[in-house]
């Protein structure tokens, strides 16, 4: 089984480093700036099936560069990434989620708030997170640096995609 998964998020939230230890990549990071996307691949066990996640690591959204919506086409799932130490990245992630939903419709997604290792510097408080969770959005707090929860984030999304 193969699934296309888009990774979206603001600039420098750690999308690339988030997946680095788990993925297989043959392309250099240059593609982010040139083509706006870099394709990576990781395999996740969902039940007793191996699922190949074809990760479309999209260029970080910022005020100068916007996500190419055509890259979202055909995605089975999305991972929105925010940086816990920058509150506005959460807004960007949620905004991107809306844009993606408008573009490709309802697909399973998760919200990953990265940089858990810097939790004492976080701007996003627990209350906000709980509110988001209440809306039915799965939120996973990870640390790309230590690798905490990263694998679980992929597994949760994979399960959601397989259930659909």
């Amino acid at each position: 089984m193969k699934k296309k998964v888009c990774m979206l998020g603001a600039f420098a939230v750690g999308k690339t480093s988030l997946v680095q230890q788990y993925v297989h990549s043959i392309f250099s990071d240059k593609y982010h700036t040139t083509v706006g996307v870099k394709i990576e691949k990781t395999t996740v066990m969902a039940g007793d099936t191996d699922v190949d996640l074809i990760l479309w690591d999209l260029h970080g959204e910022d005020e100068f560069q916007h996500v190419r919506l055509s890259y979202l086409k055909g995605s089975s799932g999305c991972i929105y990434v925010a940086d816990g130490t920058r509150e506005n990245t959460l807004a960007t992630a949620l905004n991107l989620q809306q844009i993606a939903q408008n573009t490709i419709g309802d697909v399973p997604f998760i919200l990953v708030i990265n940089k858990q290792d810097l939790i004492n510097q976080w701007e996003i408080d627990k209350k906000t997170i709980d509110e988001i969770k209440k809306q039915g959005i799965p939120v996973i707090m990870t640390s790309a640096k230590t690798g905490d929860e990263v694998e679980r984030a992929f597994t949760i999304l994979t399960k959601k995609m397989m259930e659909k």
Partner: protein
Amino acid sequence: MSSKATDSHTLNSLKDLLLKPEQKQIQRIEKRLDDPMIRANEISNALPDAISLSMMGSDKLPRAIQPVIDGSLKISVQKNPKAYADAIFPALGPGIRKAISSTLMGMIQSLNQALNHSFSLNGLKWRYEALKTGKPFAEVILLNTLVFQVEQIFLIHKDTGIVLEHVVAKDAIIQDPDLVSGMLRAIQDFVKDSFSTDSDDDLETLRIGSNRTVWIEKGEHALIASVLRGTPPLDLRIQYQELLEEIHLKSSIALANFDGNPSPFAFYREPLKDGLKSKAKTDKIKISPLLLCVFIFIFALIFYWGFTKYQNHQIWQGYIARLESQKGLILLSTKKKNRHYYISGLRDPLAHNPDDLLKENEKRQIFITSHWTPFYSLDPKFVIQRARLILAPPSTITLSLSGNTLYADGIADQMWIEQFKRISVTLPGIDRYNDDKIQNTDRHRLVAELKALSDMRIYFKNNRSRLVKGQEDFLNQVLQKLLVIQTLQSRTSLSVQIIIFGHTDSSGTEKLNLKLSRNRAEKVFNYLLVNGINPAFLTLSGVGTQRPLANEKTLDDRRYNRAVSFKTFYINSIRGNL
């Protein structure tokens, strides 16, 4: 009777009571069934779901309605063709454009190949093949010459970019197909977003370096991307397009509902593998005889050219060497321009003709333009030669040169000697002359003539100043001699004096004899004078008996003294040789 009626009424009431709801239901159903409007309304609500359900199950419905659709399409097109033309134009236009451009590409490709192979042995073979099969010659060439290899073929799901199937040629080096396919898809989107305005314009061909190409065939739900090396025939592309069409036809549902599971497409592995075509380069390099002939001809031409060039160079060098070794020729410059050789220099008129230094066959081989400026060579050989030419010495004279002095040795007449003295010093290379060894012939002759004259006698009659008969001839001889002497004298530097002595015999008185002798001398003198002898040479003297010419032993001896004799003198007026 009344109970019967009551019973019937009761039954009806009971019936009503029991069956009324059902009856109402039946009435409603009847109404629904009878009223076409209600039925149409219901069917219209159920139809979409029914069709969807039917599509999910089998292809029964499409099969059933196909004739209806065909028929209605036909009627509709007949009724309003323009609407259809308008509708299909956007779809047809790009297709036609694409077909034309790919045909043109193919034509250019075949033209190139045809030009390259028109004259080879294979070319002839292929012409025969084209004739036999009825295929265009260019196509036959293309089929036989293209060298290519299809390295990999991807069957890619269009929206997700996920690889549905992937085949690789045996020796191709590949990267992870999922990643490559994803990126390829992304790049396609990127290119389309960035450069294309038309929704049908897509990235169709990627060129990597000069030898590798990626062809992307686009279908509604899937793509076939083929990675090729070399120059593949465009037919192959059509094959891929056909395969893609077939895949869409057979698996349109699976493609439309693709959920990430590529296993249903494993079926296309074999057809895709069929697309992994290649054509290897023929190892044997065959050279057509015509080409070989051309090569040999060119080689021969080059060889001939080289050899001629070498030969010409040799001739040229030899000629230059010969010119340089020649006396009287001085080379100032030599140069070669194209096939022409140019020489300029100085040439003594007496030097060897430079043209003669080239052999006849050499003259035919190289073209030499020479410019010679005349000059006088001071080489002794030329100085002496020039002296000989200008002075024209008689054969009795030998000229020689020592340093800058010209020596003449031998016998020459005075005139030449004068000329020698005058001219020799004006000749280039000669400062002085030496005539010490020249013997002057005129002097010799003059001296000889004078001597002969002094031996001559003219005899007179006894006691008279008249010539003895027959002496007139002698007198004339004397005259002739003197004329010669006079001429020779004028040509030499000798100053000549001739004394005419008149003699008498011993008979008679001294006084008479002196007078008589003088008369006799005068007689000769006058004769010579009137006959053109310059009197300046001549002196006359009557010596009587004082200088007897013979001893008068007998009387008869006296007649030898009755005569005129000549005494000659000469002195050098200037330095000269005798």
